């Protein structure tokens, strides 16, 4: 096991955690979105680390796909956020709680 290997993984896990906490604590959908992106990129980091470690290509390709998918998710997400904004509501996720129970 190469020396730097656990380091990258720990970094990846930390990024993932930061992203998750971001999702949990922020109320602005844009920031939440960015946190999700952070989580996905944490996974990308892990994938690439592993790809290096196992000396296979699959992880790198996987990461590319994740980046592409994340991008398309962002497109949809931004459109939705725009929609909410245009309907005259504040960009606050706590406002979006009409349905419950």
């Amino acid at each position: 096991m190469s020396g730097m290997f656990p380091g990258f993984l720990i970094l990846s896990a930390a990024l993932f955690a930061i992203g998750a906490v971001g999702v949990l604590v922020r109320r602005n959908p844009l920031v939440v979105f960015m946190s999700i992106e952070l989580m996905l990129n944490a996974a990308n980091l892990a994938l690439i680390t592993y790809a290096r470690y196992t000396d296979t290509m699959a992880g790198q390709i996987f990461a590319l796909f994740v980046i592409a998918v994340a991008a398309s998710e962002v497109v949809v997400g931004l459109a939705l956020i725009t929609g909410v904004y245009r309907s005259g509501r504040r960009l606050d996720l706590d406002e979006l709680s009409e349905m419950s129970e």
Partner: protein
Amino acid sequence: MMFPAEITQLAAAPWLPLHFVPAANLVGILPILIVGGGAVMVLLADLLVPRRGNLVLPVATAIVLVGALGTAAGQWAVHASNPVVFNGAYAEDRFALFADFVILITALAVVALSPGYLRRRGMEEGEYYILLLASVTGMLVLTGALNLIVVFLGIELLSIPLYVLAGFARDEPLPQEAAMKYLLLGGFASGFLVYGMALIYGETGHTGLVAIHHVLTTTAVSQQFDPMLLAGIALLAVGLSFKVSAAPFHWWTPDVYQGSPALVTTFMSVATKVAAFAVFLRLFSATLAPYRAEWQVPIAVVAIISMVFGNVVALAQTSVKRLLAYSGIAQAGYVMIGLAVGRPDGTEASLYYLAGYAFMNTGAFAVITILSRRGEDCDRYSQLSGLGRRQPVLAGLMAIFMLSLAGFPLTVGFFGKFFLFSAAIHDGQLPLAIWGILTSAVSLFYYLRVILIMFSGMPQTASDEEIQVAGVSVGGAAVAAPESAVAVGVPAGLVVVLAGAGTLVLGIFPALIYTLLQGITVVHG
């Protein structure tokens, strides 16, 4: 490693522009190609035809779906001896094809319901059909996925159009909320899923399920369980549980089901669940089978929590859509019994249940879509009151779906549960079966209450006290029931009647599907 040398040596048809892809591979994914290509065609057609009230798009969509269905049927009939294509990335085995059938038929039903529903709700947009087809494409990718990357792609391809569809009624506040919740939570769950996949990949060195299975078989025999790998499995399970809306990862389900247009909910609740369960079953019952002892109990616990939570909370609902959402959580729990059992009979039972679920849940939602009107879906209990008098046939069909969801004989729901419990008992998973039984008993209350509301013919005020169970006054919402019968279009009527007929026929002759299931093969790695 992705493209070994022998693939390039295979002769490709000279007329194929993608000459480096063997024709067999393309034939293997023909349904996907048809639906995916169809989506593009419909996109183009949308530009050409006049916008509102035109039947070209739905008809075209339907043709695409029928074509895919026919192709899938052909593949089933051919029953290729080695169904693996694209070098182990995808399998058109019968397991996948079975799920494809269910998905395509559901999509077809949704398309048949669409023109009328969209017109009533005033959202006749061509994008609707495109998004639908795109989502179906994702589902078809998912059912046969033999590589973690493909699984991820399939899930996202399935989900992203649905995020849009959920918020398709752009001018209403609830769909916006639904779409936002779905998108953010979906992305959140995707993070877990991908991270889990990354861990599995890292610990096994493979993304292909076949290779992963080999590695796991070895480590399981030597009892060298890798905690990172197990953590990856856990995250994978969490991500998939989210997609099948199993508790406690179901939180998006009630809100999204309620907020989305009823027809989207129909599609979401059935097709998504089938596709997600297909990959769930393949991954766990097959690929991760060597680690069954490790994941069985957590999965069983999730199943039990789903059954309990879904059924219990459904009791307190007053909206049929929301009721069906919780019911869907519970049904996911039932299907997970088969998953937790993991043996072939468990897998079969789950598939049988999913097939039946497609009929009954599509039918139930279809009734709701038929009752919808401009600006809202009429799904409050109070709006169903007296339906038995106004529209006895529709109410009768709804009753069949409710009975089926409750698991009564004569309906497909009975044999679904029968096979599931049978598998559980055979595997010695008595607690699963007992929890299934107990929660089924609880579920009777709310399913039968819907029938009671439709048929009892009692004035709403009288039934308030009668049917109230959790302190929720059913009549409290005071939404007036429609006075007159709504018009049921021919395609919509056909869908409901066929769903009802299917529910009954499969409930009386389980062999019709079960013999199909007997021939199933699962490529599992």
